[in-house]
């Protein structure tokens, strides 16, 4: 894998905007296909079937706009002011100046496990959360490295992209599941009732529906993981460029990985957001393919080679 990284934040944003657009187009296509298939299976007359995508898109838009506050809510993050955490806020301010970004809202999670995440659909609506453990266990340069990494996610519009991926992933799984049930338990009878001609065509549609229902969530999951891992490497690199001190982030990552406390407030749904996978999972090649973060040793090695 080669990481080409433009030096100017503007160029990185342009590249990411293009990718987001392609991804979005892909999402709409797959969702449209799925909803037409669902429409046919549940027996909607053909011209109506495509309209099934409208409620689905409305759902997607709502998830997209509320995801940031939901994430902060379920992780128990509290917003902090400059009076409460002067060191932290000052560091974020300085890094924002260096990156040319507006100041995000800063949150602290009262949890002893060191970790951090950023969220928000664009830099103007961005938030960044760090755990108490991160503030306590890291030294100044390490903390700066982690904050720069999170700010890079904001600056590169990674969060918008990841939110889209997650919303899409959820919807695909939901619809595939729906279709799977229908095909097996409901729609069979109906097609029997109709039972004149068209049986072959219906069988093919069912076959496609079943294969799609099995493959779509797997594919969506793999896309999600691949995108997430690539964004992590990129944020490591842009963060290091910002602090001019890759060693800070490298040693922070080692500390975070070596920390025995698991993060109490993390779960599968929010794992991709954190700087390192907060779930302590066992290692295997299969798990590697479906993990949201590249292995820490690999990230540290790359940082030390910069």
């Amino acid at each position: 894998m080669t990481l080409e990284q433009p030096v100017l934040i503007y160029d990185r944003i342009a590249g990411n905007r293009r990718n987001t657009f392609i991804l979005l187009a892909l999402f709409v296509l797959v969702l449209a296909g799925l909803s037409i298939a669902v429409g046919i299976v549940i027996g909607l007359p053909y011209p109506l079937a495509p309209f099934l995508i409208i409620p689905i898109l409305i759902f997607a838009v709502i998830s997209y706009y509320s995801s940031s506050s939901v994430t902060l809510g379920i992780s128990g993050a509290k917003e902090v002011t400059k009076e409460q955490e002067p060191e932290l806020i000052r560091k974020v301010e300085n890094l924002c100046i260096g990156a040319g970004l507006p100041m995000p809202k800063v949150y602290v999670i009262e949890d002893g496990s060191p970790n951090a995440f950023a969220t928000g659909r664009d830099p103007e609506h961005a938030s960044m959360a760090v755990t108490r453990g991160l503030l306590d266990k890291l030294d100044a340069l390490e903390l700066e490295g982690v904050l720069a990494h999170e700010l890079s996610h904001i600056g590169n519009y990674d969060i918008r992209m990841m939110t889209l991926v997650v919303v899409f992933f959820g919807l695909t799984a939901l619809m595939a599941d729906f279709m799977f049930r229908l095909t097996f338990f409901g729609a069979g009878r109906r097609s029997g009732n109709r039972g004149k001609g068209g049986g072959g065509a219906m069988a093919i549609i069912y076959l496609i529906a079943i294969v799609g229902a099995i493959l779509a969530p797997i594919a969506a999951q793999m896309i999600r993981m691949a995108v997430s891992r690539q964004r992590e490497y990129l944020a490591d690199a842009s963060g290091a460029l910002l602090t001019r001190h890759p060693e800070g982030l490298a040693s922070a990552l080692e500390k975070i990985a070596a920390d025995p406390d698991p993060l109490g407030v993390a779960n599968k749904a929010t794992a991709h957001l954190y700087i390192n996978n907060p779930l302590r999972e066992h290692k295997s090649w299969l798990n590697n393919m479906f993990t949201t973060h590249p292995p820490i040793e690999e990230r540290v090695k790359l940082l030390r080679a910069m």
Partner: protein
Amino acid sequence: MLAILIVLIVLLAVVIIAALAMLGMYNGLVRARVRAREAWSGIDVQLKRRMSLIPNLVETVKGYAAHEKEVLENVTRARAMLEQAGGAAQAAQADNVLTGALRSLFAVSENYPQLRANENFLELQQELSDIEEKIAFARQFYNRNVMDFNTRIQVFPSVIIANMFNFERFDFFEAEETAREDLQVSFTQSN
């Protein structure tokens, strides 16, 4: 007749494409220049903050260490130099002098325990060191944008547009060697 028509259409297309390309390049240059100026204002804000704190600092120090005339004068002089500086190169030079003068002021202050106990002084010291760090980050952002703009107006073919419309180079804001050494980060690596 047909041949002439085709030639005309092709010529027209070439002219239109060339004009569009020029327009795109011109807009790109203007955008890069706006970014560089905006990045400059990021430095400027911090420089102004820094200058505004200095009279207060000088007064406070005078109260405890009035005979450290030379050190105090150096700070005041450097501040005046910065205030009159025109352009990034001069401002950078003046700012570096000011950083040095402040550093010796704070070094000297170590000899005055009463001054070190003054809350106002400590606050000013902390704020000034924060501003120094902010200037370093703003400098980084500014220089990166300037490098982008200066490169654009020197490379072919946008150099033609740049000369036509008098796009001028920006000066870098260069710091004297600071604590944070500039580290080469390579942008391409294979995994």
